């Protein structure tokens, strides 16, 4: 590992710690978390976000189509009855699994909708952090590659 990368990792870890312990404001925490976006699995991403495990929760709801007519644009909505502070959207079979991460200050509804790219049929996962714990739910989205665009 080159020194620069090690520094980055250390820095990210420190920021992660500071964020999780409330030492820095949310604006600073919204800096781009490189480590998380380089994660190859749910565990990698969880770790980079300062978590360890995520419990499956029926209180996290993931709204995504069963079939996407095009993998370039897959609509994903996440909502929860939990008091979410953070939400993340992951695509299990993408080269890097984390697609987007959201920080929700107090007063912001536990909901987000966006659109992500999927290289192939895969599970899509929604991670929610509430009361210091992580929760997850997932759903398979079938992807039709390219369609007739040849």
């Amino acid at each position, binding site marked *: 590992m080159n020194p620069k990368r090690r520094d980055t990792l250390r820095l990210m870890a420190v920021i992660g710690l500071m964020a999780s312990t409330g030492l820095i404001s949310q604006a600073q925490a919204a800096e781009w978390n490189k480590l998380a976006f380089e994660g190859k699995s749910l565990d990698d991403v969880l770790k980079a976000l300062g978590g360890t495990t995520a419990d499956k929760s029926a209180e996290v709801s993931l709204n*995504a*189509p*069963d079939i996407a007519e095009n993998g370039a644009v897959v609509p994903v909505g996440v909502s929860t009855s939990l008091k979410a502070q953070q939400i993340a959207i992951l695509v299990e079979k993408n080269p890097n699994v984390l697609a987007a991460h959201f920080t929700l200050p107090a007063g912001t509804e536990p909901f987000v909708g966006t659109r992500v790219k999927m290289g192939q*049929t895969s599970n899509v996962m929604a991670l929610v952090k509430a009361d210091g714990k992580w929760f997850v739910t997932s759903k398979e989205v*079938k992807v*039709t590659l*390219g*369609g007739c665009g040849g």
Partner: protein
Amino acid sequence: MNRTISGGRIGVALGLGLSCLAMQVSAQGTPGTPTASDGIAKYREMIADGNPAELYEAEGEELWKKAAGPKNATLEKCDLGLGAGVVKGAAAQLPRYFKDTNRVQDLESRLMTCMEVLQGINPQEIIDAPFGKGAKKPVEAIVAYVVTNSRGMKINAPMKHPKEKEMYALGKHAFYYRGGSMDFSCATCHDDASKRIRLQDLPDLTSQKGAALGWGFWPAYRVSSGEFWTMQRRLNDCYRQQRFPYPNYTSDVTIALSAYLAGNAKGGVVNTPGLKR
């Protein structure tokens, strides 16, 4: 080889090749699960909210009002058929005959005329630029702006002038014209409402209802390419997939097909810009 064996049962189109890539959909066919078509309907519903064509529309509105070209003029005096500067409802009544050019013009051909006459821009530069690039880019954004201003109106291309009727007739002829290495015409896929390619339903463009489904939703933002596609671009790619050679930008065949579609779709609703796969 004995014809009587066939009984016509293998039928038509093994290998009709509209360039579909393999789809990675596997059947999990348990009873009660939604069908593939249901899934696609939900997908379309979900992406309908928030059409990125709006971004092009905003840019187009700015370009319409901004002085440009060697003559440093805006397009605000451009006559799209309803009088100089009238944008509202203009796209719903195109293609149509224009006296000054003595030609039936679609929106893009007419915009080129305006850009040439008012702004001094050489139309050849627009014709030669690839879609989505160079001199075509501003035209495409302006198209998004103009067609948005007919949203919700009735499709009503006049089709009264002899030249308009002539264009419609040419468009109809072109619609059925088979050629190229796969013998395809537009009609091969688009003269029957019950057919589909892969999972995509094919509108019957010879019927009013089907033509309105096509003409009424294009131009559109195309999610597969992440770009706004004008009607010229839509037709260009149809011909590419038909294995035809390259239709020249705003050539007779492209305007004629637009006239045929708009004529058939008359009375339908303008839903442009659409949002398409």
